[in-house]
């Protein structure tokens, strides 16, 4: 082989390796590929592995997995106190604060940067926004034109018939990533039923394998059961078993083993607490402190509630009617009011979004 031929061959090889490298980067083992993310709504958020942010898009009945490339570990424990979050997002988006709606708030577990889903505008044509708030207070809109992402349509999503719009809508109320699966809770605007879906991540390629839709029931004291929607939930491990602790629309707190979330199963949550009348759980998180496990819950009426999770595995479900609050013992932290969102910040703090005098404040609080 002559030298020019050899050089040509080597150049070709180098080029081929480079292309393969780029392709491997573009579509990695996580199934994400470079492209433009076209959200129609931005609702429930959750973090997955390696800086992947899951975004629930109810308008498209889909979940997006977006590579935030935000994987740098936070160097130290910070605290956050950002006032006027809605004013600041409105300023960037060139509108008034009343036209900004915050839909969800989650913290990247590695970097502790805060991710906010919001919308600009209040009508059906509102523009979805994804906002990153640094622990230093810097606010920026996430760039969506050229990012690695994947999209999956929800199993059993409402279908539009040809030529007519379908008024049925399934609002994605909560998502969470648990060991290779995304759990998605939804609330229909028509039938009263549960729809908890489990979708594997990386998302399956074939449409026929988009994950399972599981009917969840709520049993009332071994007498009555209702096919009942879950509004909010939090994953929690008891021993080696993974559970979700969930709040139904009808207020009781239940636990459901994740292993039971399979199609065809008659899945029924067992009540671990009735939280009292008129109390509406908004967000929950679990944590450990001084060797004990707790659940922290934001409510619409009762400030923050702290529940002991001790011996939840041995806890007997409530089987007799209780006229007032019962079950797992809890205490109320009344000094924190107006909390709209609650999420874990780091090992010792939670992050809340609270409404104070029409202004939305993001701040860290020590886990109680």
């Amino acid at each position: 082989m002559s030298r020019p031929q050899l050089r040509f061959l080597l150049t070709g090889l180098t080029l081929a390796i480079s292309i393969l490298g780029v392709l491997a980067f573009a579509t990695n083992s996580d199934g994400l590929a470079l492209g433009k993310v076209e959200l129609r709504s931005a609702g429930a958020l959750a973090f997955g592995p390696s800086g992947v942010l899951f975004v629930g898009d109810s308008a498209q009945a889909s979940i997006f997995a977006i590579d935030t490339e935000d994987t740098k570990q936070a160097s130290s424990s910070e605290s956050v106190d950002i006032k006027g979050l809605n004013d600041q997002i409105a300023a960037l988006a060139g509108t008034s604060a009343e036209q900004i709606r915050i839909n969800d708030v989650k913290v990247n577990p590695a970097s502790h940067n805060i991710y906010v889903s919001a919308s600009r505008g209040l009508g059906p044509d509102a523009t979805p926004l994804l906002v990153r708030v640094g622990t230093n207070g810097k606010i920026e809109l996430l760039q969506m034109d050229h990012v690695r992402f994947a999209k999956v349509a929800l199993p059993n999503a409402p279908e539009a018939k040809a030529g007519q719009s379908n008024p049925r809508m399934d609002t994605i109320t909560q998502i969470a990533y648990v060991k290779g699966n995304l759990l998605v809770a939804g609330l229909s605007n028509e039938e009263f039923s549960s729809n908890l879906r489990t979708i594997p991540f990386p998302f399956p390629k074939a449409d026929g394998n988009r994950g399972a839709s599981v009917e969840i029931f709520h049993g009332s004291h071994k007498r009555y059961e209702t096919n009942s929607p879950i509004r909010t939930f939090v994953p929690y491990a008891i021993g080696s078993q993974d559970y979700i602790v969930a709040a139904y629309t009808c207020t009781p707190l239940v636990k459901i083993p994740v292993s039971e979330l399979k199609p065809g199963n008659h899945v029924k949550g067992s009540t671990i607490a009735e939280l009292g009348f008129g109390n509406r759980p908004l967000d929950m998180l679990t944590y450990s402190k001084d060797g004990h496990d707790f659940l922290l819950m934001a409510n619409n009426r009762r400030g923050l509630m702290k529940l002991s999770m001790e011996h939840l595995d041995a806890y007997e479900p409530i089987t007799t009617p209780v006229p007032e609050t019962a079950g797992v013992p809890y205490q109320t932290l009344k000094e924190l009011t107006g909390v709209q969102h609650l999420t874990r910040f780091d090992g010792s703090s939670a992050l809340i979004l609270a409404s104070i005098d029409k202004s939305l404040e993001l701040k860290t609080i020590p886990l109680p």
Partner: protein
Amino acid sequence: MRVFRNVFLLLLALRCGAAAETIRLVEGVFKVEGIPKDRSLQDWRSTFAVYASSATIAMLGTYEFASGVLQFHPRFPLAPGVRYRAVFHIPGTAPIEAFFDGPPQPVESTTRVEQIFPSAAVLPVNILKLYVVFSAPMSRGQEWNHIHLLDQKGKPVDSALLEIDQELWDPQMRRITVLFDPGRIKRDLAPNLKMGLPLIEGRQYSVVVDRGFIDARGAPLANEFRKTFHAGPVDREPLAPAQWRIVAPQSGTRIGLRLELPKPLDYALLRRTIVVHGPAGAAPGDQIAGAISIANDETEWSFVPSLPWKRGSYRLSIDNTLEDVAGNRPGRAFDRNEGDRERSPKGSILVPFEIR
């Protein structure tokens, strides 16, 4: 000395040149005109910024500079009712500032509530949900301030409705679903035991949608809407489609097939959970195209086929998610006895009928 004076005059001329720069808003684009063509400006964002209302953080957008015109294209369209402040500032010179208004906000109220479902004047005390239908798309964030359930004295009924953040709109935001608190309807739960059902049998109630509900354009409703009803007996009867009366038309016609229901069913679900198949012997997947209409306070469902009926055996396929106004389904009450689980139908219920 003369040299110095000339330099001073030159600087003055340059400054006067800068003063000739003007800011205009043309079709949503902010423009600074009159910039010397040879001016080299590196950092547009720090030179020219646009702010919404009293914001101190500049709006996002992209810049373009050509032929002495610097353009700022906002990332989002200008919002109605918002005042914008554009500031052009070259360091060392006086800033030029101009104010512009976003598109005008509509002032005319034209949107109305078209209807509230269920339509009936008597509703069971364990009613599960209402649909409020508007004549045009609406805005989020107002449901709980502008939809009221009042008793016969006009006082709000305490904790009857489930106030949740996820407003249950349809995609066009013309219809919102309002749930009664299921914790009060479902037997034996704490709220049910403590407060009972949300309504009291025999009493009169009103659902009021007040004028303050803002539509998607930003205008309030044209008028208040009020639906008055009486609370009737509790309904925990599962649906029994096999017992519904079917009035079948003659073959060769396009007269509507009529289904007479013993009680009002859910308006939204009636529109999509019942389909017609047939006639027997037609290809599998033989669903017939046609138009559904719902009448008589949601106690009558009818179906006009696109093509005339043929003689033969047809069937109605009724999805098991169909509900009445209290959430009862075929073969299953809203809160069924656990022992009844086995009797609940799975999938669709088929009801045969003949066209002669």
